[in-house]
């Protein structure tokens, strides 16, 4: 299985590299009288399928290297740590550049840097995020690591536990609004808290799905006609997803800084008393 997954990853990487080289050559041939910005837009749009394919192939490789048996004393596998830090780099590149593209228009200001360079960095970050958006689901599917997913029929219990674990000033009104009984949730079993299963992971998944889908629609317009209203809706929701992700990053850092062993585990993989769960 490891050999097959390694072969799939190798083929995925090779196809992505060949696609990159071929598209680069076509773009730089000078046949099309495109500006730097338009050329980058088309380049990014054409490379997306290969980035997603490489993400799938490497997700299979990560799963094969990890296996499905939990390892005592390890909280996160090497494949999870790799994906986590890779998507962090993607965020560091894509979020500030995305925020500037939006904010520059709002306040009507320009940086001394050329706009196409900001877009170029944004696209590199976006490509990394898209790679990870394909990588993680395949990895989880292949390893069966579903610890962060609320099991069917368990949503009420997880939400009740989440409301109970919040500060009372926030948790009580939330429980009342959702008609939850916080006492009905036993202490969280497994490796993840109710905060992580009922709130953090679902909001990450929603924000990442929204920014990926709307980003794909925005990129698609450089390859085929996209109706104006759909493009307008995608652009608006892309900005909304960006703000959600800005907030998610802040909340994630706040949460893990208060639980330092989690930060250490995302570096070394080890957390005493835990078994590998993601």
């Amino acid at each position, binding site marked *: 299985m490891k050999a097959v997954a390694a072969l799939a990853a190798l083929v995925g990487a090779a196809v992505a590299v060949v696609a990159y080289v071929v598209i680069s050559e076509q773009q730089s041939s000078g046949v099309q009288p495109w500006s730097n910005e338009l050329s980058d837009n088309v380049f990014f749009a054409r490379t997306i399928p290969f980035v997603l394919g490489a993400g799938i192939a490497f997700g299979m490789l990560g799963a094969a290297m990890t296996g499905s048996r939990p390892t005592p004393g390890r909280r996160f596998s090497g494949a999870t740590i790799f994906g986590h830090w890779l998507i962090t780099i993607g965020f560091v590149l894509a979020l500030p550049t995305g*925020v500037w593209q939006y*904010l520059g*228009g*709002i*306040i*009507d200001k320009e940086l001394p840097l050329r706009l196409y360079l900001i877009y170029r960095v944004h696209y590199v970050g976006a490509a990394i995020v898209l790679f990870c958006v394909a990588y993680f689901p395949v990895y989880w599917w292949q390893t069966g690591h579903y610890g962060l997913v609320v099991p069917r029929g368990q949503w009420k219990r997880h939400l009740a536990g989440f409301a109970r674990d919040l500060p009372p000033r926030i948790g009580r009104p939330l429980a009342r609004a959702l008609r939850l009984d916080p006492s009905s949730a036993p202490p969280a079993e497994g490796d993840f808290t109710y905060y992580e299963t009922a709130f953090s992971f679902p909001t990450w998944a929603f924000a990442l799905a929204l920014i990926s889908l709307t980003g794909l629609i925005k990129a698609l317009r450089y390859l085929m006609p996209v109706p104006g209203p759909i493009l307008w809706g995608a652009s608006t929701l892309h900005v*909304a997803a960006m*703000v959600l992700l*800005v*907030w998610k*990053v*802040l*909340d994630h*850092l*706040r949460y893990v*800084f*208060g*639980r*330092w062993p989690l*930060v250490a585990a995302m570096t070394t993989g080890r957390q005493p008393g835990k078994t590998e769960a993601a």
Partner: protein
Amino acid sequence: MRPLAAVLGLLWAALNVVLAAVFLVSAFIATTPQHEGILAQIALLLGGALVGAFGVLLAMQSWKLITGRPA
């Protein structure tokens, strides 16, 4: 490692608080959202408030990491 992470956290929080302030101010005075309508202005207001509040929370948590006080 903790002080480095905390300093980076403080820096990130500060940048986000500045961003939130720009969002909040732009909701009232920037011409682009005024042209786009009240929904654009409300979006900036809510986005700015959310980012600002969590920026402050992250700054507080980062400070606790530096001073060693339990969270």
